[in-house]
Each structure stands twice: as structure tokens, then as C-alpha cells.
């Protein structure tokens, strides 16, 4: 919609103050939070993802836009929760046990939030049992595992196994990502998918959520 173009452009160019100002103004004008999300923030972030895929945007630009998006989302979040708007799906993300790298994981989280997903962030160095427990508590649809190190990739497998032994493996989808991770590895450990960057992670999550 025409009136959200400026908000979209502010996301695309990473102007966080402008995003905050415009989001607040729409709220003050009585626009529903869901509409601002669906017609302002999400389309803006979709352009960012596309520009990244097409090699026009790189990590600094993505981070800048992600930060701007966050400002808008934080304003909308309490209203979305209060109005009981259903997210696309619920995703639990975390960096696996032994690994404390979180830049990639954080970028995936914000892109997912910008794609209309509800994201629960388990943080870093997350044990398999914690993933299982948190997934249950929040009844998530998807679990996203991140690892940067070859030494911590086996923690991904252990986490998949933990869901199996718990009996909750078939209730959730598991997607994995991180520098040393591949599609082949995802298949080997019995994960449902691998995405090689934050932008493709959204597509993967959509596929897994069946939307």
C-alpha cells in the first residue's frame, strides 16, 4: 500500500530512527499493528533479503536494516501479542553446546521475525536437553540450530538425537546453519533442512512450516 512505502524504504536503507518514528505515527493514527507489520516492515525486509541474495547488499547493510527492523518490531510486539495475532510459525533458535558464536544466529532470528515468525532465542552454548525442554514449553514448530566450529557440529547431531529420545522429534522440524554446515550434513544427522544464509533461512522456514 502506498502509505507504507516510506516505512519500507527506511527499513531498506537501515534508518532506524525513521522506522521508529513512522511506526509510531501509524500506531498513533490508529493503524492496526498487523497491517503495519504486513505492509510496512515485512515487505521492506523482503527487499533487503533479495538485495542480499542478488549481491547488492552485504553483511553490514543487512545488519543495519536488521537493526532498523528491530526498532519497528519492538513497538509492534506488545500490540501483536495483545491482539492475539497468529505468527507464521514459532521458531526456537540457538547456538549449540560448546559454541558461543551468535552473529549468524542473531541475523537469522531478526530475518525470521521480519518474515512474520515468532522467534524464541535460546542463546548460545545451548545443551540438547535445553533445546528439547524449551521447544516443548513454547510449543514451537521449528527448531533452528547454529554452529560455527567443526568441533561443535557434533552437538547438532546430539540435539537431533535428544529430540528423538524424547519422542518429540516428529512434532517439530529442525533446520541447521553455520559456516562448516552443509545440506549433506543436514541429511546425515537427520535434520529437515539447511540454509546457507539468513535470507535463505526464511525460505527454508516457510517451506518447513508449510506456508
Amino acid at each position, binding site marked *: 500500500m502506498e502509505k507504507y512505502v516510506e516505512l519500507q524504504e527506511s527499513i531498506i536503507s*537501515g534508518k532506524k530512527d525513521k522506522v521508529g518514528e513512522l511506526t509510531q505515527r501509524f500506531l498513533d493514527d490508529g493503524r492496526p499493528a498487523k497491517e503495519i507489520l504486513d505492509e510496512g516492515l515485512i515487505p521492506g525486509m523482503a527487499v533487503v533479503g533479495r538485495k542480499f541474495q542478488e*549481491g547488492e547488499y*552485504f*553483511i*553490514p*547493510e543487512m*545488519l*543495519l536494516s536488521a*537493526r532498523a527492523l528491530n526498532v519497528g518490531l519492538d513497538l509492534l510486539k506488545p500490540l501483536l501479542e495483545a491482539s492475539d495475532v497468529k505468527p507464521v510459525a514459532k521458531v526456537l533458535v540457538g547456538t549449540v*553446546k*560448546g*559454541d*558461543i*558464536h551468535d*552473529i549468524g544466529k*542473531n541475523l537469522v532470528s531478526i530475518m525470521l521475525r521480519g518474515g512474520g515468525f515468532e522467534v524464541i532465542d535460546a542463546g*548460545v*552454548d545451548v545443551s540438547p536437553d535445553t533445546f528439547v525442554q524449551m521447544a516443548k514449553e513454547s510449543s514451537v514448530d521449528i527448531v533452528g540450530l547454529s554452529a560455527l*566450529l*567443526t*568441533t561443535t557440529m557434533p552437538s547438532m547431531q546430539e540435539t537431533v538425537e535428544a529430540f528423538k529420545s524424547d519422542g518429540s522429534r516428529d512434532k517439530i522440524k529442525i533446520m541447521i546453519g553455520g*559456516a*562448516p554446515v*552443509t545440506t549433506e550434513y543436514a541429511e546425515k544427522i537427520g535434520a529437515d533442512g539447511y540454509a*546457507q*544464509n539468513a535470507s535463505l533461512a526464511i525460505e527454508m522456514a516457510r517451506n518447513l512450516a508449510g506456508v
Partner: protein
Amino acid sequence: MLNSRQRVEKALTHQEPDRIPLDLGGSGVTGMHVSTVYKLRQALKLDPPGTPVKIIEPYQLLGEIQPDLIDALGVDVVELPGTGTMFGFKKTDWKPWTTFDGTPVLVPGGFNTEPEPDGRILMYPDGDKSAPPSGQMPHGGYYFDTIIRQEHFDPNNLKVDDNVEEFELLSDADLQFSALQARRLFDSTDKAIFASFPGLGFGDIAQVPAPWLKHPRGIRDIEEWYISLASRPEFVSDIFARQCEVALANLQRIYAAVGNRIHVIMVSGTDFGLQTGPFIAPKVYRELFKPYNKRLNDWIHENTSWRTFIHSCGSVMAFIPDFIEAGFDILNPVQVAAADMDPTELKSRFGSQVVFWGGGVDTQKTLPFGTPDEIRAEVLERIRTFGPGGGFVFNTIHNVQPKVPIDNVLAMYETVRERGNYPVAN
């Protein structure tokens, strides 16, 4: 037969030596994790069981590559030792310690850490436990990562001074140490000497949080730094300009101390590549980084016989023409498993202009998870691709990691030894 130094020099001038030269431990990006060094020394029967290995780099936990290991493997490069570490403390007063995986090691006196209640261990700038910790390793981990200490800053009133505190003239004592070490290694070994000094690389994200400073000011958060490249490039350029002046003064002082008794110098370790493509826009490299890289490289080429070395992980195909124009002689680690990094294309497009120092075997997949036969096949393929015409120094793609099967490491070095003689084409 050539000696090691002649062998490396030939390779660096794009001529075929007698065999492909080999580096292990020449720098902080061409080394080996201490756990693997320990296992390798045991496998080669260089030490009785339980003999500790020195951690010469306490951030990545790199193990010391001693002369007996160099001889056993046929390594052609040695590191010019420095005095300092990423956490500021000096490499002195060695004391025993044990890694999480049980490897007996020796660490510097300033390596002061006790497990926290949550099992993590922390590292402190200068080993000073009264300062906020600057490094952490999770329980069971193998490396430290920096703890970001980002103090509040006013984005509308940023001061270059705050972000250049760490760039200062090298001390006379450190230069004297380098001078002595360079002379010792030059006179008593026939190896090529690889030197690294602080403050030459611009915007290296491992250095931005400055884990050796007790109270770093300015922009120290990793995401904020990357964002700054896109949102405030003039500020970043001002930091680089100030850093560059200090670096040029240091290069003169280093040259006065070591002369041409070093052969390779690490000029940049900043990562410009991701697994999947460029980290930053090539245009940003061209405008923001390249002019400063070029000034340092130009000074080196005009005044010394040193070869200039750039390390950048990931997919860097898009940057290589600019690296070459900026005056880099050597590219590392040649991460051929990253996107758009086909070895044959790299060699054919750039092989006459830049030396490939690395690319020998993949350390994310093949070396840790492959079989010895897979490793032999990959090493042989790389020798045949990168070797012809010289311009290739064998090294793994970045440091050899922990938890790597030692038979795989042995298979790699055996293949280099047995199949690395020129001519290598068949």
C-alpha cells in the same frame, strides 16, 4: 637440492623449486591447535606421553611448532616470535595447565583462569583479574572468543582517538627482541622467516574488541563495527588513516631492527569473505581498505625485500584483483571450499600474480571428518592444481583444528612429502 629458504624464495618468485615448500606454524593463521600438536608429537614419538606442549597463542590455543617437529615434517618456514599475546600478557613465566580435552600444556604466567560456576573459563587483559574479562571459553571448548566490552558511545559525537588507543609505536624492547630473534633464526636455520607485528591490518574483526585493553573506548562491538562500515565510512576511514601513520612509522622501525632477515610479513588478516560470498561489498574494500593496504605494501616494496601476505577467510574471488593491485604478493588461506573459489580458476586467473599460501586441504570437512585416502586424494589434487610454475606454499586452509584424527594429519604430510616433488603435473 635446495635448502628451505631457497625453496620458499623460488616459490615466491613464481618459479618451480625442487619440491613444494611447506608451512606449519609460520603465523597465527597457518598453525595447529595445541591438542593436535600434542597428538602429532606423540604419534611421531617426539615426546614421552604426558609431555606438555606450549600454547604460543592463547586466543586460538595454537601449539608451539618446535624444531624437532619442523624437521620431522620437512617444514620450510619458521615464525619470527613476538613477545605479546592477544590478551596483552607476555609469553614468559610458563606454567602447566590442562585443556578441557585433557591435553597437558604450558601457558604464560598471565594466563590466569579458573572455571566459573557455569563451567566457562575467562581470560583477562594483561592477566589482571581486577579488570573486566575480555575472553571466554565455554565448558568443553577449544578456543577463546572475545567478550565484547562496549561502553556507551554517542553516535553523533564519535572520537577517532577512542578507536586508535591500541595503535602505538612498538617498544624498543620489543624491537630489540625481534632483532635478536631474526638474527638467530637467519643465522642458525635455513628456513624462510615469517613475521607478524601488531597494528598492520585494518579493521580486523578479531582485533576490534581489543581483548588486550582493560577499558577499550570507541566502537568495540562486532556488529556495531560492521554496521559502521555501511553507515559511517568516513569515521572508519579516519581511524584507518591514523592507524596507517603509526603502522608506517612501525614498519620503518621494524626494518631498522630486522633488516632483510625476514622473508614474509603478515600485512592484513582482516576477513573479507564469508563461506558463501563477499562479507562486504568489493566497492567498500576498494574505497575504504585498499588505499591503506596499498600504502603499507608500497612502503615495504620500496624499502625491503619482504613479501607481503594477506589472510582472508572465505570467498574472496571478487577481491583478488584488488588485493593484487594493493600490492599483496601472497594470498592465504585460499579457502577453496567457499563459494566461487574454484582452484583451477584461481590458478589460471591469478597464479602468475599472487602466491597461494594455503588451499592444501580443507579443514572444515575433509581433514576432520574425511578418511586418510580422501585426504591423500585432495592433497594430490591441490598439488597438481596450484603447484605448476611455482607460486604455491603448502598449508592447510587455516589452522589445523582440534579433534582432527591424527592419521588424517599424517596422511596429509606424507602426501606432501611423497608427491610434492617437481615436476608435479602428473
